[in-house]
């Protein structure tokens, strides 16, 4: 069936089964490959996108469910936060500066998830940051440099 989606501020019409995974529609139909698949069962968080601002594992969402929702993927994250020109939010920049990305496969999901945290809680504690990112597995960093980066990008954080 024809499905109309609002992705990164654009209207996209795709032909897809209503139960197709949102992750597949984003990657294969709309060619937004920044969203990654790591497990396909909602465990690793690599496919995290924002649905109406909330971080969700897009591998668990049937595409029909998000018609009329505002979807934000890593490709649209900076613009959605008012950093279209810079191409990256201060949080994304901090992740690079602090060494919070290594292989980079989990990084889009983590950036999306952490950005949502900072929107809702501009000055989270380190414990709160760890809690917010508990659904995003990273096999490279040991998380500490990611937490450092989010803390640095938070209000009052050192940059």
């Amino acid at each position, binding site marked *: 069936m024809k499905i109309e989606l609002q992705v990164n501020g654009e209207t996209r019409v795709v032909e897809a089964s209503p139960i197709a995974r949102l992750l597949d529609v984003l990657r294969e139909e709309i060619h937004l490959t*920044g969203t990654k698949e*790591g497990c396909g069962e909602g465990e690793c968080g690599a496919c995290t996108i924002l649905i109406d601002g909330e971080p969700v594992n897009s591998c668990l969402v049937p595409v029909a469910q998000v018609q009329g929702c505002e979807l934000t993927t890593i490709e649209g994250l900076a613009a959605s936060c008012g950093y279209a020109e810079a191409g990256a939010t201060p949080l994304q920049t901090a992740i690079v500066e602090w060494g919070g990305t290594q292989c980079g*496969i989990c990084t889009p999901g983590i950036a999306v998830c952490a950005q949502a945290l900072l929107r809702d809680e501009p000055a989270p504690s380190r414990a709160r940051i760890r809690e917010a990112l508990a659904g995003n597995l990273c*096999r490279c960093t*040991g998380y*500490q*440099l990611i937490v450092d980066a989010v803390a640095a990008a938070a209000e009052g954080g050192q940059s």
Partner: protein
Amino acid sequence: MSDEIERSVDPPNAGTWNVVGKPRRRVDGRAKVTGQTKFADDLVLPNMLFCRLLRSPFPFARIKSIETTKAEGMPGVKLVLTGKDTPVTYGILPVSQDEHPLAQELVRHVGDPVAAVIATCEEEAQAACEAIEVDYEVLTTISTAEQAITTPEPQLHAYAQEGNVHKRVALQFGDVDEALENSAHVFEDVFFYEGNTHLPIEQHASLAEVDKDGNLTIWSSTQTPHYLHRAIARALEFEPHRIRVIATPNGGGFGGKSDPFNHELVVCKAALVLGRPIKITLNREEVFYCHRGRHPVQMKFRTGVDADGKITAMDLETLLDGGAYGSYGVASTFYTGALQTVTYKIPRYRFRGCRAFTNKPACGPKRGHGTVQPRFGQEIQLDKIAVALNKSPVDLRLNMLVEPDSLTANFLTVGTIALKECIEKVVTGSGFRERWGNLPEGRGLGLACSSYICGAGLPIYWNKLPHSGVQLRLDRMGSVTAFCGATEIGQGSDDVLALLVAEVLGLDPQDIHLRTGATDITPVDLGSYSSRVTLMMGHAAIEAAQRARALIAEAVALKLEVPKGRLVFAGRRVFDSQDPEVGMTFREAVVEGETLHGTLGTTGSYRPPRSPARFRGGGVGPSPAYSYSATVVEVEVDPDTGWIAVDKIWIAHDIGRSLNPTLVRGQVEGSVYMGLGEALMEESIFRRLPGKLSPALVHKFPSMLEYKSPTSLDMPEIVTYLIEEPDPKGPFGAKEVGQGPLLPIMPGVANAVYDAVGVRVDENPITPEKILKALEAKRKGKEPRYGPKSFPEIPWEDPFCVSPPWEGGDGTADNAPQRKRAATKEVYR
């Protein structure tokens, strides 16, 4: 060749560094954080088809027949391949070419591929896979190494040394029995280290294409494009010069993408047959079947010490559960015995190792390859020795560290060793001397140390060629492009390449264009394994850049009428060190160079120094340099439940020189994390379903939901110390960091558990159940310990006997028959 170039740990520019040692954002960081990095599964080609594999549901079976007619007629299906289409073997080591792209007569583990379907979409390919009818004759399953060594039939591989024993090795350095007999104390301990897996977040993916001239290209998430290139040429009997392998950035590797894989060969074969691009992306369950993870290893250490606790001799036996294929297994086996000697002085040493075939996915190299398991045993045993002799675990170790610039009993050449400084840092930082043994019940500290190679001294296959090559191209636009076969797997390979070239040429690393891991345009680099990239590619990069610098300097010196020795390359300029105003931009300097010399291009290459180890089996362990690590782990253990929490970890790493401290710290912390996952929860375990359901030996956890790995909430605070003592064998003094810091974590946790509640867990992972069982044993007055009771009887061959250097040895075996010389060349290389 690189051997002629003088190597220096000093800056090439007037005594100061341009970029080395400065914490920097990695060159590929922005693309990763914005989602622009293209991993293999992100690639799309016009007219592309999709591949799915039909995998064996049985752990061991004979294929009686395969019926594909129905599948071939299904919607969208373009091609069905079976074993008859892929009859030639392949494998990473020349001595174990025991895999086929698709199974021939036998399937050897659940998940072994039997057939492939190519269709217009994945769903159609999957549906057709399910329509293939395979008639299997189920065979008796070999499930453990212990069972394998006593069960020769049915045999997994006819080429095995004996029955289901893949390989037994035995080496002896000096009269160990005599030394043990004359030791003040002999400690005998057995340990078990359960297998676990890499769990890279990226699932393996490959895309193959045949161009208009019939040449084959594969883009793949591989750590070793050169070895994959060789495997494709062999297994598909295709001319190697018509193949190009492009390693896409790996979304995590950790050793799990170092073998050539069946799915890679299958998509190449299908592309050659159909002439269309073919893509495959494995799902998470299939990644578990690729495996090549940590070998489960049983170990027995017999260690003699003198009255002071100094080691007099060590006798080590290991038994590895190899799974269904050879993989790197022969090297893994030698690695379980290779590096004991480079940390503490061991005057006499015997190592005997055995690898067995079992009906499980093949084990292989995971971060710390083969050295992790015996390090677990060795460091726990040292802790036991310290306690038994009433000595501090700190002083016991400090008292017997290997000397710098020395040879070990097994002829490994140790250069710099900053382990003393590492130990002192973590001991001071954690307050170990005051707190160890004095904390309240339930809280404890554990100390452990380790060392690791900075690149394997020998390649996988025998040759005298460079291990790494770098080419530089410079042109009048001021652009510099570095070409190298090295592979970015997240460790920072690209960043090291860019930063070293930038250092020598006075540029910013972001200025350097990189073309890496593409076997048609990049000089061969053997791949991202054995912690070899920084050292080996680093030397090649510096050499190529020094040559480019010399060409440019010659031209600039003529133009400025300044002696070329006075020229400095810094800040994107080339200028006179005595009058910095006299100079030109880098771009202008390249124009001068191109004017004088013509088109500018340089190369650099690196080959490790020859090892003094001349005995059979001495090919595993030699390295240009060794890194060292020390850790103190603080734990809290609930004596009622065995629940364990790691509160803090202090880790110090002997890095030689830290080229980019941001990335070095990331590698240290990432290693600590992966080690802690192994210590506390990660394990690849298998179970038999009830006979009535199926005789299958199945993966208990082929899913991320069930295979537990630490989350951000599970990770404690890590305090990292980088110890810099530049090593003359490293590029500007740098040593490895990607693997070494993982090694001490597991024994550090085990030793901390002992300090906390007085029980030994001699088996990894160290779970609450095991701690609780040990606590129960302690309460009942039994040995306060959980772990294996014994080590299996293995009919070892007489060892090759090599006299240690201090007993007049020259690195050759005293009892090696001449005829073995030819064989040496094929083994382990």
